[in-house]
């Protein structure tokens, strides 16, 4: 670790619903340009963890810092203004607008022109909107109604929208869910390429292990709300605790009681 604060620093994040500890004391960090995968079986606390990072949900305790600045307790839109772009597990786009207009709205917001009543939105920063669409390979679709797009294209559009505020960090919740195998590889390759070029940190959750092991620089593994492993794809793959969690219930109990065995 260098002296400068990491891009994203998560410390002791905890959240419980009623008596259930959804997330318990999760800590990790993320460097600029790094691609970090957050994995774990269903119910491990991935979504809860993710929602606390993007402001959808408030942690009971713990901190999230972006370049040293606290984001805990901030609203999603405030976190976005700090330079965090995001995509959703189920795409959220503006269905009655064209593809270009979807990006333009994000650019309007980024340029703080939301309350501009007299400008021309159809001509708003067309150049940048075009560049972003080209970047994700959607240049030819700019004038198509967003509601007509295929699902994979919607995912790419979301990526373009997420990049509109020149983010330092991208949060992607199951970016390849619902896509064909070929599209998954393409989308993640594209994301990785953009992240490295622009030195953007990427945190994503994912169920497809092929995607995870191929594209993540580092992987963190959640089980029952606690972080059980962290490391390079190779390290995580060979980690006995992770294997236990993913392969056998019988080893699970043991794994939990050997907490701290791996880092």
């Amino acid at each position: 670790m260098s002296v400068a604060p990491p891009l994203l620093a998560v410390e002791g994040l905890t959240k419980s619903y009623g008596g259930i500890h959804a997330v318990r004391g999760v800590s990790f960090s993320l460097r600029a340009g790094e691609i970090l995968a957050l994995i774990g079986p269903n119910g491990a606390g991935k979504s809860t963890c993710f929602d606390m990072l993007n402001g959808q949900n408030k942690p009971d305790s713990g901190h999230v810092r972006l370049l040293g600045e606290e984001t805990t307790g901030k609203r999603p839109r405030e976190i976005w203004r700090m330079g965090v772009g995001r995509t959703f597990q189920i795409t959220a786009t503006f269905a009655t607008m064209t593809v270009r207009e979807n990006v333009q709205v994000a650019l309007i917001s980024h340029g703080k022109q939301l309350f501009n009543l007299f400008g021309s939105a159809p001509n708003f920063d067309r150049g940048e909107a075009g560049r972003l669409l080209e970047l994700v390979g959607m240049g030819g679709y700019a004038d198509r109604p967003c509601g007509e797009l295929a699902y994979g294209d919607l995912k790419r559009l979301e990526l373009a929208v997420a990049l509109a505020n020149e983010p330092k960090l991208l949060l992607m919740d199951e970016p390849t869910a619902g896509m064909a195998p070929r599209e998954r590889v393409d989308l993640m390759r594209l994301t990785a390429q953009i992240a490295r070029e622009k030195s953007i940190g990427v945190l994503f959750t994912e169920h497809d292990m092929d995607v995870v092991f191929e594209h993540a620089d580092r992987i963190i593994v959640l089980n029952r709300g606690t972080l059980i492993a962290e490391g390079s794809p190779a390290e995580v793959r060979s980690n006995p605790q992770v294997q236990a969690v993913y392969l056998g219930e019988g080893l699970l109990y043991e794994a939990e009681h050997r907490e701290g065995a791996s880092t």
Partner: protein
Amino acid sequence: MAFYVVQFLTGLASAASLFLVASGLSIIFGVTRIVNFAHGAFYMIGAYIAFTLTERLSGAFGFWGSIVLAALAVALIGVLVEMVLLRRIYHAPELFQLLATFGLTLMVEDLVVLIWGPDDLVGRRAPGFKGAIDFFGQNIPSYDLFLIVLGPVVLGILWLLFQRTRWGVLVRAATQDRDMVAALGVNQKWLFTSVFAVGVFLAALGGALQIPRDAVHHAMDLRIIVEVFVVVVIGGLGSIVGAFVAAVLVSELNAFGILIFPKISIILVFLVMAVVLIVRPWGLFGKPEAAARKTPGLTVNPWRPLTSNERLASLAALVIAATLPLFAGNYALTVGSEIAIFVIFAVSLHFLMSVGGLASFGHAAYFGLGAYGIAFLAKMAGLPMIVCLLLGPLLGCMGAAVFGFFAVQLSGVYFAMLTLAFAQIVWSIAFQWVSVTGGDNGILGVWPEKWAASPSHFYWLALGVAALVTIALRIAVFSPFGYALRATRDSLLRSEAIGINAKRIQWTAFVIAGTTAGIGGALFAYLKGSVFPDNLGISLSVDALVMVLLGGVETVSGAVIGAIVYKALNIWLVSQTDLSKLVLGGFIVLIVVVFPKGIVGMLEMLAQRRRKSSPPGSSLLAKPIESAE
């Protein structure tokens, strides 16, 4: 003390009917997701039929039999309505359903007068409950005591029906997830029909049971439906227990409100409703609404600004409209001015409803506030007309700023109901605060100054302002703000994720729409030379909704065309027939069922079909400035 007890009991007795009607509305909404505006009409028909039957059939059996028979007959009418009309629009946006059932209400109002005449009808007393009981020197009608007992009994029966019967289980399941129930092989059609029949039966029973207490008249539908809306919103849509508690609460507020705040008794109930909605937006016993249906969702035609050719055509239309005084008489010019004013009103609602996805059911409040603003400024402060026209709409602006702030905290049906409630509050103030507003007599003698007094001059003024307002709002639609507003309509989740403060955007849109409506109201006051509480009443609010829908809710220019066609038709109808409501209601139902895309939407579709090969830029969008002719 005894007096207060009696007042309390009177309140409880009133609650019985209110509960019956409200529970019916709630059950129907729970399963079909239709907010049945016609529920008040069914209540009224129930009362009328019961009146006729009790006149014919004698004796105790005759009376009570008539009540039940009347309710059954109306339930049968309900089944017909459900099968013929509602089945066609279950998948339409909820706004269309509200409108279709409102159209029905209009038709029923005229039909009832046609059959039973316009006079109040005083029904018989109930056999066995004719007298009154003495309570420490105060009289309590024994029929009231019967009703007080009846309320909880019906609640109990409904509870048994829903908990203990197979049908009840299906209804409860459908309330939670009707698609799942359909997937399990339940015949959804008949489930919906039976639920509608039960709901309508309850409404009609409520109406029939009122005849020993109240005269039957042809305006009782609107009065009860507003109260019922309040009840189900306070209690929570879909909750029967909620309907009961809220019916008691509202009735008691009415009973004691008159004693404690005689001046603002009407407002009190609406204030309580506003507070409940803000604290618990889904009502006291309701559950938060499941993810809202995709707004409008009929087409995904992206909007675009006019091409230069279309601009020229619009300008030409405006110029032609401006030549009207050269060949038309004074009456035509007055009609033209009124149409121009309604164009302003319609485009202001369009901005909120089509662009922002917020369908206000009380938009007339801001129109009327603008009109009252003029009346105050011109009559009381004696300011010159130009100054009045500039300042008058500010009253609409202020009203929209206050009410809009609360209203945008909600969405969908609840937004519609809250705006309706706010409009009723404003209406009540105008109606009850006689010393300032003149109450029902209004404020008379608000005439324009000499330069604008002649029909042609006033027409040009109205036309000019309408053109300016339409252009300004059109610019706003295609401004960054307009895009942000559409963004909040399309996806709140995505808007928030790209830094848009949706509530503030929507609030701003509400204020813009309210102020613009106020401009229309200001001109209207000068056109009519007077201001009345009707200028902010429900029927005017619904006029605005119909104008927007008629033109096409998902088009940019629909509101203008809708206003012209609707207003012209309306004025012509009123001059031609005594049954204008019947025709108008039928017309509204027809639009919803046959032309859900509206006039402009239809034209767009036809144009697209015809020139599928040519670029989309040439599609036939209607002219925005064709504001009066």
